[in-house]
Each structure stands twice: as C-alpha cells, then as structure tokens.
C-alpha cells in the first residue's frame, strides 16, 4: 500500500544524495564527541545522546551546560529551545509525510534534521515526493552523525582542535551551500532580507538557544505570505 509513496529505489537515491552533506557534517559530529569526552561523558552515553537526540546545535549547547550531576531540566529545556525550529519543518514537508503511517512516518519524523530538510525541499521542487528518499537521507546522516561523534569521543583526548579552527567552518559551509538550491528567484529576496533583519538583533539579545532561527523563519514566512495575499487582491 505504500508502494508508490515509499520505495527502496528512492531510499537508495536519498542515501546517495546525502553522502556529501554527511561528509560536511563530519567535523561538527567530531566536535560533539570531543566536547562530550571533555565533560566526562562515557562513550556509551555519547552514543546514546547522538543516536537519540540527533541534533547537533542542541547537543553542543547542552554539553556546554553539562555539570555533575547534570541539571536535567536545564538540558531538556535547552534541547527544546534550540530544536523548536524543527516544528516548522514537519508542516513544510506535509506533501511527503501525509501519505505515510507507522514506522515510515515516525522514522521520517525522528530523522528530521536541518540539512536533510533543506535537501528534501530542494529535491521536492524538482518533483521528488517519495518518503523513501527522505528516509534514505535521514538514515545516512544519522549513521554518519553517530559514527563521527563516537570517533570524536575516542579522539577527544588526542586531537583537540582549538575553538576557532577552520575545520569547524565546514558545518557553516554546509548551510551556505544549501542556500543556493533553496533560492527560487527574485520573489525570495524580500522574505530573505526580512529574515536576516530579524535574525541579527534576536541573535544579539538571546545568544543561547536558537530563537533567532525561529524568528527568522517566521519573519520570512510572514513577509512572503503577506505579499502574496496583497498581490492576489490587486
């Protein structure tokens, strides 16, 4: 019954397409492992965190706040604040998700992550709608994320790249690359400007968490939709 909405051919296609992004995320995963080792988390705990949470920015923030004993509510809220942006991704992928159920739906929701989301949106505009593609992308990123954070934990004591090391730029470079296929044309300019204009002051006022990302997504969305409605009336 899921034959057309979730195919293994699309799963393989998604897995292949996400390999490059997985490589770009590798330094980010290594950093998480190094940080976890530095905070005294065991290899098993590091693997559990990366496997179950699977959201880099929130893991880095939580590890920054990690003490012994760990403030459980604080790290839980940190994860919520940083990952609230993901609540906007599921609805944007509704066309992919609404025909799925069971593990195919929940698997895709669990594996939802920024880079995979951006890739899916870009491919979706070219006509891709197969839930298997989404799952293949997420699965490769999840395996790579787990492997890299475990490797980072092992290397943690040996290899300690300093905070400003250019290797860390790879994670930002991955986001910058993904902006190119997300650009649809001139009608994106005003929403993107609004997003930047809102993100900058919010990032300054609330540097912890990812409120600036949520605020930018809402501002860009509102400006775009508001202009479409005005043009529709005119």
């Amino acid at each position, binding site marked *: 019954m899921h034959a057309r909405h979730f195919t293994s051919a699309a799963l393989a296609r998604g897995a292949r397409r996400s390999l*490059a992004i997985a*490589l770009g995320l590798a330094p980010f995963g290594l950093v998480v492992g190094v940080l976890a080792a530095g905070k005294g988390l*065991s290899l098993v705990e590091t693997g*559990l*965190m990366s496997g*179950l949470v699977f959201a880099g920015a*929130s893991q880095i923030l939580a590890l920054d706040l990690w003490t012994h*004993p*760990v403030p459980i509510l604080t790290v*839980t*809220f940190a*994860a*919520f604040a940083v990952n609230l942006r*993901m*609540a*906007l*991704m*599921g*609805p*944007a*992928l*509704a066309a992919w*998700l609404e025909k799925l159920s069971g593990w195919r739906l*929940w698997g895709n*929701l*669990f594996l*939802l992550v920024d880079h995979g*989301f*951006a890739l899916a*949106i870009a491919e979706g505009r070219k006509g891709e709608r197969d839930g298997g593609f989404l799952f293949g992308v997420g699965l490769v990123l999840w395996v790579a994320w787990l492997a890299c954070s475990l490797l980072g934990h092992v290397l943690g004591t040996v290899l300690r790249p300093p905070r400003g090391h*250019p*290797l860390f*730029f*790879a994670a*930002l*470079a*991955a*986001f*910058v*690359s993904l902006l*190119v296929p*997300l650009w649809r044309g001139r009608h*994106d300019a005003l*929403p*993107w400007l609004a*997003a*930047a204009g809102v*993100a900058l002051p919010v*990032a300054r006022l609330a540097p912890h968490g990812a409120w*600036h*990302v*949520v605020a*930018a997504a*809402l*501002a*860009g*969305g509102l400006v*775009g*939709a508001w202009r*479409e409605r005005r043009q529709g009336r005119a």
Partner: protein
Amino acid sequence: MIETANLLGILGMALATLACRAGGYFLFRALRPSPFLRAMLGYVPGALFIGYVVPALAAGGLKEWLGAAATLVAMRLSGNVAVGIAAGTAAAWAVWLVR
C-alpha cells in the same frame, strides 16, 4: 558506563527534540491550515537557513566571510554541495594559515 543522571538528561533532551520534530507536523494536520499559512510555509525553509547563516557570519571575521563567498561561488559553478563545502573550508583554512 551509564550514570543515572546523565541517562535522564539525555532522555529528557531526546523527548523534547522528538516533541519538536513530530509536534509541529501533527498540530499542522489537526488545524487544517489556511492558504495564508500554506503560502507562509513555502518561504520558511530559505528564511530559516538565512536565520542561521547571517548571524554566524556577522559574528565571524575574514575567515568566515571569504569561506562563505568561496562556498557560494563554488556552489553556483558546480551545483554540488560537496564541492561547495570543500571550497569554503579550504578558503577558510587558507585565511587561517595566512593570518
């Protein structure tokens, strides 16, 4: 190998994150969004990544700016994310070595 408090912290993070991932989608399905909300969601992905990139670049320096410029140029020319990431990281590394 696993401390109880650490395990609880990790599980708390995992549940909060899953609530974000799944909650938005199920809320959206239950509310049956208006055309305005649907139009809005079309603009969300690009704006969301702008929200990431712009403050990070504003907080960075020459290394980040040249790295981002190299990423964009390589990405426009190749259309390949791996090439974009490699070019940007190489450019950032070059700036880091020179300074």
